């Protein structure tokens, strides 16, 4: 792996951590994942850094969280978070970023209407597909109930998809060689 890839991996892990400095909106205590800006970092890691670098950036991020650095929104960190209701969403981050990176890698010049669904697929569908069953298992909820709860997060995630798409297209115009 070249130096540039190492730097990009570090950068997007750091970006996701920096987005955690924005206060999270938490509305059901430990039982539910908070709404944070950090999933925007996941989307950008995939859409800007690409499948491999983006996926590894998120892997690095969750490894740093696992060893106890308080990088998650609200200053959370440590192995405990994986045992919580939002643990599955966290573990899905590398997969989400890699899927987004893979899809966009196949159509780097995609317009807004094509890129936004790609980011939404990786950043919402893939993430929920891993996160919701995990949450249902940890919190002892039936799967249908867990899905219903997560519907509340969809509007916020759609906003992040739109932001990620606009930012990605802007950055890719400034750096066509990415």
């Amino acid at each position, binding site marked *: 792996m070249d*130096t540039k890839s190492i730097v990009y991996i570090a950068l997007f892990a750091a970006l996701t951590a920096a987005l955690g400095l924005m206060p999270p909106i938490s509305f059901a205590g*430990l039982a539910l994942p908070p709404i944070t800006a950090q999933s925007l970092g996941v989307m950008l890691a995939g859409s*800007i850094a690409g499948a491999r670098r983006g996926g590894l950036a998120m892997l690095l991020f969750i490894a740093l969280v696992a060893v106890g650095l308080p990088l998650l929104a609200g200053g959370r960190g*440590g192995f405990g978070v994986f045992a919580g209701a939002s643990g599955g969403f966290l573990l899905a981050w590398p997969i989400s970023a890699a899927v987004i990176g893979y899809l966009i890698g196949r159509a780097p010049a995609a317009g807004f209407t094509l890129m936004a669904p790609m980011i939404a697929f990786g950043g919402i569908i893939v993430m929920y597909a891993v996160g919701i069953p995990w949450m249902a298992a940890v919190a002892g909820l039936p799967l249908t109930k867990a899905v219903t709860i997560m519907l509340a997060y969809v509007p916020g995630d759609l906003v992040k998809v739109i932001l990620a798409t606009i930012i990605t297209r802007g950055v890719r115009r*400034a750096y066509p060689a990415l």
Partner: protein
Amino acid sequence: MLDLYSPGTSYLHRLGPGPKILTMMLGGTGLFLFDSLPIACAAFIAIAALYPVAGLTAKQAWAQIRPLLWIFAIFFALQWWLSGLTTAAFVVIRLAALILLASLVTLTTRASDMIDSLTHALGFLRPFGANPAKIGLSISLALRFIPVLAQITQEVREAQKTRGLERSVIATALPVAIRTIKMADDISDAIEARGYRP
């Protein structure tokens, strides 16, 4: 946030990062396995008692908890409402204990030592094509970038404010992203200029 290290010579400072991280992981997992208020309280007291042992002040311990007080308040209120007072106390005390424990490790361990032992511990990945030295470099870089990103965001936000654009997320986020990519390209040049061979 991450430049937490507080220089010292206590036993906890001299203890290698490996055992400290391992204890933290075991302790953290243990607290989740035993769902009981007395155990959480005992753990909290035991961890708090380690602060003076490490030559840290009550003020430093408090500084770890203080920024999270409002989250504790929300958790406490919600859990009280959802599941009763005991659960609420338990959840908040367990969280406080976990944060004090994690902070104790970061306060007594230099980031470079932490990274060195993490790099060492990741040696088992070598057969799978991962290079621990590169992982170590990427960890250091990530920790270095976090404050720089916060600063770039601040600068861009101020610049956009003078143009009346401070309410536009895109007007901040896009220049930050572009400057950040430029920084990444420069820093990879700088790393190679300082003799690093990938």
